[in-house]
């Protein structure tokens, strides 16, 4: 059952790289730029560090949208890390599509250290896009034990 759009606050997880996009987000903050508070940030050293399983896990745990942000191509602190993200995200989107998850819930952006404004804009736009899409609410008949979930299984209604 979808929550009424007006009340729904999307939960977004953002994987930001240390050198560019996290610094850009920091800049947005220190410059007091207005941006949606829905983004929960996880700082990694590089966007190439984002293992696609982090993304799926975040969806499984309740994220409605995921942002992966890194340095602009050519500017990666580790030369090529962001190119890995550039290939992983489109492939993962195909997987999401096949699993019936709207691929717009996964977004890849290049945000430099100086682009506080871009960060604020992306954050706000993504939030509104997700608000329109609605909450993800993954339907599954199991919860993984390894997450500490109860071994709760039920027959999903036919």
């Amino acid at each position, binding site marked *: 059952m979808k929550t009424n759009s007006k009340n729904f606050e999307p939960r977004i997880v953002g994987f930001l790289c240390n050198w560019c996009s996290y610094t850009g987000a920091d800049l947005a903050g220190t410059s007091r730029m207005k941006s949606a508070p829905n983004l929960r940030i996880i700082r990694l050293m590089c966007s190439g560090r984002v293992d696609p399983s982090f993304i799926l896990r975040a969806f499984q745990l309740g994220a409605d949208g995921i942002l992966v942000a890194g340095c602009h191509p050519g500017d990666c602190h580790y030369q090529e890390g962001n190119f890995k993200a550039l290939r992983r995200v489109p492939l993962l989107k195909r997987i999401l599509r096949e699993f019936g998850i709207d691929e717009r819930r996964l977004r890849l952006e290049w945000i430099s250290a100086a682009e506080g404004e871009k960060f604020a804009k992306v954050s706000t736009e993504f939030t509104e896009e997700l608000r329109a899409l609605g909450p993800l609410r*993954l339907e599954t008949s199991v919860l993984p034990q390894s997450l500490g979930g109860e071994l709760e299984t039920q027959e999903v209604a036919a």
Partner: protein
Amino acid sequence: MSKPKLALYWAASCGGCEVAVLDVAEKILDVAGFFDIVFWPCAMDFKYKDVEAMADGDIDLCLFNGAIRNSENESMAHLLRRKAKVLVAFGSCAMDGCIPGLANLTTREAILESSYQETPSTLNPERTRPLPQVAAPEGELDIPKFYESVRTLAQVVPVEYFIPGCPPQPTQILNVMSAIMQGAVLPPAGSVIGAGEKTCCEECGRPRKEKHIKRFYRVWEIETKPEECLLDQGVICMGPATRSGCGALCVKANMPCRGCYGAAPNVIDQGVKMVSAISSVIDSQDPAEIDSILDQIADPVGTFYRFSVPNSILHRKQPSGSA
């Protein structure tokens, strides 16, 4: 002193795991001499009532193959869990969902509709469907309920050990049975046994280079070189994302690995690991070119998750329109 009791049961699977047990050939006599086989429906005529009549924990070792597809599979999983001291998810279906798990990419309704209505040879103008309970003229008949999703054994009951493979190779089965028969101390509960601790690449033997893939090939369209890594040649091979233990039989026969031994150690989702691996070896930095290379992967989910949809993070495809 009475012999330890062994049970084998097959849920939703093809039976290959049990044939693999037979394929230990003459060594089966050692196994049969050591254990008292108390339940094995495909080979012996013990019935469910006989298992119900046993004391809890009476069965020392139960090798349970097959996924949980319907209500009978599920009730047998619960029954055998109660009656067995050690319950093993035997083979890919029980451990990961395997091929029957591909049904989690479609729906129960679609399966019933195609099987009993749409397939071209089916002649069913009355739109008859199998039902869990039917009132026949003479009395009531029942068959198990077909669930919406396929689950693994461990998603239904706690499991002590996992033996991967489709099927587990007879040599590995023998390794496990011999260890048990010799009284070896088993690893902690929850472990994968009867398999290796690396990936299939370890057993492959083909020379590997640093990969720069600009094009992917499907197996029908290319004759591969036998002395070169298949992935190097652009053929998707699940070796890097698959646990070792099978001897890399498929690759040695010139076909790419498809991942039947499940995820490598410490990996929770086999398919997404392959996403990572494939992305790392694509040789392009241009988004449009990347897209067209990715388009050459004919069926990403069905290839990367061929054997493991139910045991993946996402477990099943979302109903359309909801996600």
